[in-house]
């Protein structure tokens, strides 16, 4: 299908909305828009970070997911207790592919699930005693842990347990950091508030007004930076880190993929905070800027165009040595990048992509697709805020479709009409689109591949997109709902 005009896109939105009852129609209309480069502020054309409508299928997660799953979970040398019923932690266990180095169960614990496994009696009589006991057990069984975080699930807030008191007491007893996190799932409209709560808990319980970093024997240097908001999915932070190190910087901390508690504690002394996922970690970056005078900048390590831009921007905060370093790195990888583009652009040119992802990818990956000659024709965030959409408007083409907290129904209808060549979204959307015969990549977990960050990541990204898009299997698929009736009865 050719490029859609503004009128066509608007008509499509109208048409899709028609099926809803009037009230729902009005609400959902605010979350869908046609991109317009003239608009400076996204809130004029799109509403975001609002409660999802009851009755529609949303793809969002909960505050606990934002704190335990995203921000705290990847800190590898701490034990993160999913405090409450067993399910929240168990069903999300190890699903995010935050890679790390260490011996699981000895000095690192990321893929393990620790839970207080609430039963009826804990709801009735409170779970504080159980939590205290659990912390003692953890200390006995896993003495090499560096600290503990208590991630509250819904019931904790509902029954009013005092996890702060328990944490304080236990922290004094065992002499380690114990962080209570009030990230009950029902707080906020999506995982986004969980990120915020988790950031605040790092500020209050790890930094402790600057006290937190005392006692670590870390010598600050002039080129110290931290990588913030990179969760090392499939090794993303590693393929980013090597570039920074190659240009002469010293990466002191990784937040939080493959990160440690000591790294968090050292961060208030770095020279610059490099922020990849703005949505989940801008809060702590803002705090460090105000309190410790550390500037922060957003960067983008998807695709050579954006990487080059970002490396130069990062270097501009430092002296000539680093600036030369950045040029050297860009020069070094250029032949490799050119070869990749030469190989894949002819195979992927002009292909159209629809995205629907989380924190930063709906806008950050656009450049990488463009480097492959592809075009992003629709994008949207599960839990973005206005500032995310402000940043997206500039990245997207004019008159393309933007959808916030898209519902299952809308996404399907949009895909049917726009007929993209590729859809990038999450596991919940994967199978429906694959059954429809549309090539699909999971853009949360990189579909068990990755890394996608950095130059090395781009090579894998390009290969994966080609592998998916040009796979001959798609033409062979008949959606189950299009099969003739007899065929299905036969199968019974």
């Amino acid at each position, binding site marked *: 299908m050719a490029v859609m005009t503004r009128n066509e896109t608007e008509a499509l939105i109208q048409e899709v909305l028609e099926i809803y009852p009037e009230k729902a129609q009005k609400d959902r209309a605010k979350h869908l828009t046609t991109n317009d480069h003239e608009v*400076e*502020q996204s*809130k004029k054309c799109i509403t975001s*970070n609002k409660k999802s409508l009851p009755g529609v299928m949303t793809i969002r997660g909960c505050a606990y997911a934002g704190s335990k799953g995203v921000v705290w979970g990847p800190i590898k040398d701490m034990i993160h207790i999913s405090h409450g019923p067993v399910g929240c932690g168990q069903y999300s266990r190890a699903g995010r592919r935050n890679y790390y180095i260490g011996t699981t169960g000895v000095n690192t614990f990321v893929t393990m699930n620790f839970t207080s496994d609430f039963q009826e009696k804990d709801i009735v009589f409170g779970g504080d005693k159980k939590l205290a006991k659990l912390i003692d057990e953890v200390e006995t069984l896993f003495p090499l842990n560096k600290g503990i975080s208590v991630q509250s699930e819904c019931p904790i807030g509902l029954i009013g347990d005092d996890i702060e008191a328990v944490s304080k007491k236990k922290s004094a007893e065992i002499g380690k950091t114990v962080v209570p996190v009030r990230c009950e799932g029902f707080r906020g409209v999506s995982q*986004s508030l969980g990120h*915020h709560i988790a950031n605040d808990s790092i500020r209050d319980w790890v930094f402790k007004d600057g006290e937190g970093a005392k006692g670590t024997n870390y010598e600050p240097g002039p080129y110290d930076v931290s990588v913030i908001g990179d969760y090392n999915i499939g090794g993303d932070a590693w393929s980013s880190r090597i570039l920074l190190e190659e240009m002469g910087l010293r990466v002191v901390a990784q937040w939080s993929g493959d990160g440690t508690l000591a790294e968090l504690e050292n961060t208030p002394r770095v020279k610059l905070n490099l922020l990849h996922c703005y949505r989940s970690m801008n*809060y702590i970056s*803002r705090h460090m*800027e*105000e309190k410790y*005078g550390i500037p922060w*900048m957003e960067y983008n390590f998807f695709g050579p165009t954006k990487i080059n831009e970002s490396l130069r921007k990062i270097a501009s905060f430092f002296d000539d040595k680093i600036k030369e370093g950045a040029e050297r790195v860009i020069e070094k990888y250029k032949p490799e990048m050119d070869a990749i583009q030469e190989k894949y652009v002819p195979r992927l040119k002009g292909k159209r992509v629809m995205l629907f992802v989380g924190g930063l990818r709906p806008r950050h990956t656009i450049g990488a697709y463009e480097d492959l000659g592809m075009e992003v024709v629709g994008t949207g965030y599960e839990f973005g*805020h*206005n*500032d995310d959409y402000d940043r997206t408007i500039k990245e997207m083409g004019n008159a393309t479709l933007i959808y916030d907290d898209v519902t299952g129904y809308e996404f399907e209808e949009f895909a049917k009409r726009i007929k993209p060549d590729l859809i990038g979204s999450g596991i919940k959307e994967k199978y429906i689109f694959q059954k429809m015969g549309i090539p699909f990549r999971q853009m949360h977990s990189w579909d068990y591949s990755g890394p996608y960050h950095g130059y090395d990541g781009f090579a894998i990204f390009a290969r994966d997109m080609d592998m998916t898009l040009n796979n001959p299997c798609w033409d062979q698929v008949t959606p189950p709902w299009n099969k003739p009736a007899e065929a299905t009865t036969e199968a019974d």
Partner: protein
Amino acid sequence: MPKVMLRRTEKGALSFYVAKKDLEAEVSSLEFEGPGKWGGAIELTDGSRFFVEPLDEEPKLPITVRATRIDE
């Protein structure tokens, strides 16, 4: 009286950030910017107006201050 954080953006503009609401907006005008007095009425690019107690001089940004909404 929301607590807001004022900071300079990359482009040098003043940004107005309400942590509680996760709202970030650009300041379009600030009443007192000169030496001697800094703060006062603030207008955001979306038209809403706030007031912060004027300080003696431009503070080191970012800074968290209390702002009151000015309702017309």
